[in-house]
């Protein structure tokens, strides 16, 4: 019997309509766990570098994490993987909600889509009965609307739906896959789904998920359920509100946006408004948020209330989480009310709340600079907010300038030319980043921005504090109760870390310590993404419920895989290396591992080179950022070296 996982994938060839239930190899679970890990292995095996994102041979994989559908609180993430039309590297984006557990209860760990449907369809997965259904009546419908219509059509309110909106149908590179309060938004997954002509996937499952050591798992869960409220009622002092407790940033609960509005940049990642957060603004924003927020809601089997139902009078109700309330607001130099309003339309269209507002702000900058002119914006209203709605409507339909902008800032800038490239100042590996521009180089964040395979800072940062606390006493207090560290040396790194002086940025933490801190934080994300545990209870917050010292026990008890800390660390490293290797096959090299040039004012080129050298060494990559023969052998992935050799990719060199 298979534990925690079902042991089956559902493979659908959209070109031929062939549907297969395929048993999986338990040895792959031992090596890669599941979720992102096994997704990456499938993509490595079946999607070679020659396959383009919009080729029928590209795969779109929806995977439940290994622990989804078990009683483990917060294990509900769906990991969606494919090749990104924007970065041309592996795209992986996660979503919470209810989709992954439902897929497991239907009897599958993964849904693997290949080929292209001749017509727009939706998939109906009802336990063993799987149908490809006509979706012509859903063409052009909003993502939220589509989910509702499908539930009505299937006459079952318990069906879970993941859908694309107009943006996905039109292969907009910022297109998301929307699912209730959640979405897999980054890197253009919705565009690949649209390219495959799949409007939506509906799942319903009524089967059992088995557990290897039931009593141990439930006891573990009871401890987690005791820890969560205890930790939440003891917020960490000295850090901004959203980082003080657990959860994915609780943007729906928290009103205090002083930190984001004053530290993040407005417009096209351009202007900092240092004294923005006045009493008046605070009161107005609080009132706005409370007037539109109907209820705080959660994902499957999780007590954190990171999402909300949002009802703005006069427009349809939708659900929101995290940060999108601010991204449109700040890109448009507007206010929170605008943010909540435009996010409704954006959610129905199904677009990424990070990239989309930046692309629009970028376009308006080009307009102001005279690079784009009135001819590019026929009929655009004169008011600021009206312009954002107008641009959003054009982008998702790929109309006029919208067609150019729909590829994101990097590609649009190159298509427009005439110096537009200069305004592309906030992308890494062709992907829009958080709007942050800072002063002094932060070596930890330098490495995370530069090397993160997800190209998204929130998917790599986490367990180590973002900045030192002002006094040594505070730091000593913090490390006193810190069982989460993989090694006691991390406590020392933190205690000795100062805001100013010798033990401050950029030379402290030291190069070695910096790499270890990054390695730890990154490892935790790779573990979560394989298990399907939400980062909000694990790799993202300080002092989370799950950590490297308690997860091995849980994996052993739930999945029946003999696990310890070292073995788990190695699996995370294997998965991370595999994704790097996939991207190396598509041309990724050291030169791409760079944050935006103006991310910090004070840069230290020599130190930055040392940081990359040491990080690569620690990760088992050579100096060009390519996993070495030796490290691939240690990780039991000699097959990658063999492929590199055939392709003439040199992965010799010290690691």
């Amino acid at each position: 019997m298979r534990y925690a996982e079902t042991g089956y994938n559902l493979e659908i060839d959209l070109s031929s309509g062939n549907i297969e239930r395929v048993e999986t190899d338990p040895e792959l679970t031992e090596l890669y766990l599941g979720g992102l890990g096994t997704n990456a292995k499938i993509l490595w095996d079946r999607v070679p570098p020659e396959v383009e994102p919009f080729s029928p041979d590209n795969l779109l994989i929806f995977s439940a994490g290994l622990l989804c559908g078990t009683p483990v609180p917060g294990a509900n993430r769906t990991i969606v993987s494919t090749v990104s039309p924007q970065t041309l590297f592996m795209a992986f984006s996660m979503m919470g909600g209810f989709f992954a557990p439902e897929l497991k209860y239907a009897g599958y760990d993964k849904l693997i889509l290949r080929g292209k449907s001749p017509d727009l369809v939706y998939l109906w997965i009802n336990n063993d009965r799987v149908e490809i259904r006509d979706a012509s009546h859903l063409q052009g419908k909003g993502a939220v609307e589509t989910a509702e219509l499908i539930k009505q059509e299937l006459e079952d309110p318990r069906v879970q739906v993941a859908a694309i909106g107009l943006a996905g149908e039109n292969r907009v590179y910022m297109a998301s896959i929307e699912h209730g309060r959640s979405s897999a938004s980054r890197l253009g997954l919705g565009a690949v789904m649209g390219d495959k002509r799949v409007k939506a996937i509906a799942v319903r499952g009524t089967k059992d998920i088995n557990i290897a050591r039931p009593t141990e798992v439930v006891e573990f869960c009871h401890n987690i359920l005791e820890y969560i409220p205890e930790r939440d009622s003891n917020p960490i002092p000295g850090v901004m509100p959203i980082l003080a407790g657990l959860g994915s940033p609780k943007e729906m609960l928290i009103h205090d946006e002083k930190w984001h509005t004053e530290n993040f940049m407005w417009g096209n990642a351009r202007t900092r408004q240092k004294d923005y957060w006045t009493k008046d603004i605070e009161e107005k924003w609080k009132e706005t948020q409370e007037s539109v927020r109907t209820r705080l809601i959660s994902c499957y089997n999780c007590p954190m209330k990171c999402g909300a139902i949002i009802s703005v009078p006069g427009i349809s109700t939708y659900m929101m989480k995290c940060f999108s309330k601010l991204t449109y607001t700040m890109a448009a130099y507007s206010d929170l009310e605008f943010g909540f309003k435009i996010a409704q339309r954006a959610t129905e269209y199904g677009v990424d709340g990070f990239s989309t507002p930046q692309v629009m702000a970028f376009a308006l900058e080009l307009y102001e600079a005279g690079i784009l002119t009135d001819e590019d914006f026929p009929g655009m209203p004169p008011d600021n907010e009206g312009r954002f709605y107008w641009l959003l409507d054009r982008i998702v339909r790929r109309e006029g300038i919208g067609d150019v902008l729909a590829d994101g800032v990097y590609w649009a800038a190159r298509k427009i030319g005439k110096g537009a490239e200069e305004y592309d100042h906030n992308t890494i590996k062709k992907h829009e980043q958080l709007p942050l521009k800072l002063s002094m180089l932060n070596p930890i964040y330098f490495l995370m921005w530069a090397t993160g395979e997800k190209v998204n800072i929130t998917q790599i940062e986490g367990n180590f504090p973002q900045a030192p606390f002002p006094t040594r006493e505070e730091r000593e207090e913090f490390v006193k109760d810190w069982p989460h560290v993989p090694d006691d040396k991390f406590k020392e790194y933190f205690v000795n870390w100062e805001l100013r002086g010798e033990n401050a940025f950029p030379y402290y933490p030291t190069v070695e310590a910096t790499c270890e801190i990054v390695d730890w934080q990154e490892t935790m994300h790779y573990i979560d993404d394989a298990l399907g545990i939400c980062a909000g209870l694990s790799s993202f917050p300080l002092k989370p419920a799950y950590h490297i010292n308690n997860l091995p026990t849980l994996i052993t008890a739930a999945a029946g895989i003999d696990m310890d800390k070292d073995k788990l660390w190695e699996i995370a490293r294997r998965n991370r290396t595999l994704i790097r290797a996939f991207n190396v096959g598509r041309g990724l090299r050291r030169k791409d591992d760079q944050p935006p040039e103006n991310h910090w004012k004070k840069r230290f080129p020599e130190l930055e080179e040392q940081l990359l050298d040491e990080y690569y060494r620690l990760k088992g990559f050579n100096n060009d950022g390519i996993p070495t023969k030796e490290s691939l052998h240690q990780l039991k992935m000699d097959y990658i070296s063999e492929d590199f050799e055939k392709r003439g990719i040199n992965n010799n060199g010290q690691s």
Partner: protein
Amino acid sequence: MGKVKKKVKLIKIDLDQCNGCRACELICSAFHAPDKYSSNNPARSRIRLISDPLQDVYLPVYAGEYTPAECMGRDKYIIDGKEFSECDFCRASCPSRDAFKEPDSGLPLKCDMCEGEEEPLCVKWCLADALTYEEREEEVEEEETPEEMETGLKALVDKYGLDNLIDGIARISKKE
């Protein structure tokens, strides 16, 4: 039959507090797995969250008595502008819907308040405080409660007819 004192177990359900996570369904199904906690499957749960997020409807309902026939009429309730069907509030395992039935056998399910536990597991797992547990003593008429097997058998009689059921049992006993 005389009057007896009876401990009444009570779960208070606060709809305003529900966050829609369905931990209650999950742990209920795990607790009642044939081998305790060895598997889970919300379709087997004795509590069900009726939810419609866009209408802000969040309504946990517990499985009560099995009923062989569905109601003649279906009324609707409008509460604070939200629409509920009468069935939403109904605890019965009934032919009109798939709730509160074992997905494989179709046998009816009924909440037993997690006999033997300090408090029902759904309450323990509800950190949102939508479900809270209370006990109170009441004087009630003594009565015999049908055993679980009998309830199950009655449901099977209703579903397949007494003769068919007897034939079926006879066939099975020959095989074993």
